[in-house]
């Protein structure tokens, strides 16, 4: 057997070659659509993008299409709207989920079990089921067609409470007990023992909340009416519906939405994989 001859931990040259070949095939399937879109967004109006054999690289790369998007829809203000929503969601989750996660994991109080059960129960309910009545609630608060209305319901996600709970739970009891004996207040325990030990999870919560808010489509589509208030995803669909005749513009618009996320992701990818592994229950 080949595996035996080579030992199990060292990989034979042939296996290595096969693996890299397969990796490259999957890589092509995964990222070529993005590269194709990027290329389309850089092609000038003179270049025929409809030929049977369009070139993968733009003949005369130009940023005109990006300016063109901004002339057609207020794309930068949409980006700012998305950023505003994402910022509120991230801040809300960092504060709300941390406080609740800490209390549930480290403090004993009456009703904790019940509350924890409720948090868990809401996780299995698909968000779309309650989206209409959530809209009714947001409208009742006078927040229909506002960015705050888009941001508010997700500003403390139950999944994040659970993630923070898990992280605080993982801190050894002894560390905390010593502080309690020394007479530390709850606030001091959170600040000096809790927070320094859950930094990794805080990053996970930050990144996932940010991406979730930035990528979200259905909820802002329901809440927002006035095209001035659109977030980037809703604005892109609006661009697509109104100006579908120029794929270069749409391509430039998608890149404006996609590039910030992919840069953020590439920089912080190690937190992602941790978050996916730990947050798999939500789906």
């Amino acid at each position, binding site marked *: *057997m080949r595996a035996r001859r080579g030992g*199990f931990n060292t*990989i034979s040259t042939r296996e290595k070659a096969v693996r890299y070949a397969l990796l490259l095939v999957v890589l092509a399937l995964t990222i070529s659509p993005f590269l194709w879109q990027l290329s389309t967004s850089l092609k000038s109006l003179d270049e025929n993008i409809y030929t049977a054999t369009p070139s993968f690289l733009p003949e005369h790369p130009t940023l005109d299409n990006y300016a063109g998007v901004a002339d057609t829809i207020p794309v930068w203000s949409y980006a700012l709207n998305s950023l505003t929503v994402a910022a509120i969601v991230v801040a809300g989750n960092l504060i709300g989920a941390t406080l609740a996660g800490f209390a549930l994991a480290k403090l004993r*109080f009456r009703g904790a079990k019940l509350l924890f059960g409720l948090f868990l129960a809401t996780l299995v309910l698909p968000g779309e089921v*309650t989206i209409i009545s959530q809209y009714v609630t947001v409208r009742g608060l006078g927040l229909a067609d506002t960015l705050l209305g888009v941001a508010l319901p997700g500003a403390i996600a139950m999944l994040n409470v659970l993630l923070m709970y898990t992280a605080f739970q993982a801190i050894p009891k002894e560390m905390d007990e010593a502080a309690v004996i020394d007479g530390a207040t709850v606030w001091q325990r959170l600040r000096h023992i809790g927070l320094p030990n859950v930094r990794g999870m805080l990053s996970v919560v930050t990144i996932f909340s940010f991406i979730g808010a930035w990528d979200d489509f259905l909820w802002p589509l329901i809440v927002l009416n006035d095209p001035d208030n659109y977030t980037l*995803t809703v604005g892109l669909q609006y661009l697509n519906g109104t100006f579908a005749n120029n794929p270069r513009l*749409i391509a430039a*618009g998608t890149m404006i939405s996609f590039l910030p996320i992919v840069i953020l992701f590439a920089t912080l990818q190690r937190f992602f*994989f941790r978050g*996916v592994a730990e947050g798999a229950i939500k789906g």
Partner: protein
Amino acid sequence: MTRQRWFTPWLLVAPAAVWLMVFSVWPSINTVILSFTNAKPLGGGWFTGLDNYDRLLNDSQLVDALINSIVYMMICLPLLTLLPLLMAILVEKKLPGITFFRTAFYTPVVASAVVVALIWGWLLDDRGMINGFAQWLGVIGEPLPFLTDRWLLLLSAISLTVWKGLGYYMIIYLSALGNVRRELHEAAAVDGAGPVRRFWSITVPGVRNTMLLISVLVSVSALRVFSELYVLSNGTGGPGGRDMSVVMLIQLYSRGLTGHLGYASALSIVLLVITIGPMLLLLRLNRRGA
């Protein structure tokens, strides 16, 4: 030694508890209440008994949406349960550069579904790359109507969902593969079992629970599909509106002159009913895992 004041924990959980009540618990109850009313985006809101549920039974668009959901689930389920496992095995070994590949394979997951659907909308366009290339090869004479034929549009949306989901489930499998005992593989290899044999008799049983978890996640997300179909059909739901999903119907009735929040809530109950089976299964799995 200090004792915490009794209300301190409640102070800390208060924001999250308020959110839980206002944005989860109350909307759940209110969905049921609204489904018995004729609430409209503007006005309405009287109890109308079972009218909405009566209407559900005669809604041909809902029938189409349910058929679409079943097709969606039946195709996504095998593909997204199996392919990500193969990908996870591919990226499991720590070869040089493997982090780059893992990251790249995960990229479609972090992109917004809208972005992904717009990209694929252009690829699948009558004059887009896929049709152009196939015509150039001579495989097809006329462009295939990927975005304007009922079933082709549905299949396009499904491929998009699969393509976008691969990386996500790959990462879940990857962490599960770490727990499959290496000695088993070694022993099997010594006994002369080839890679295919080892895959079915060691890897698959080793990640069995993860596989069940993923098949539940895939089923539920297939039933919840929205953005792909919405963007690919440009909000129309395809020819004759026959490519709607249940969530698209909910969105359709949520706004504008055709809006009917009461009926949209009844549709939400339908969504709950069809997703509850897989979800209960998930709960049981979680309990067993814990």
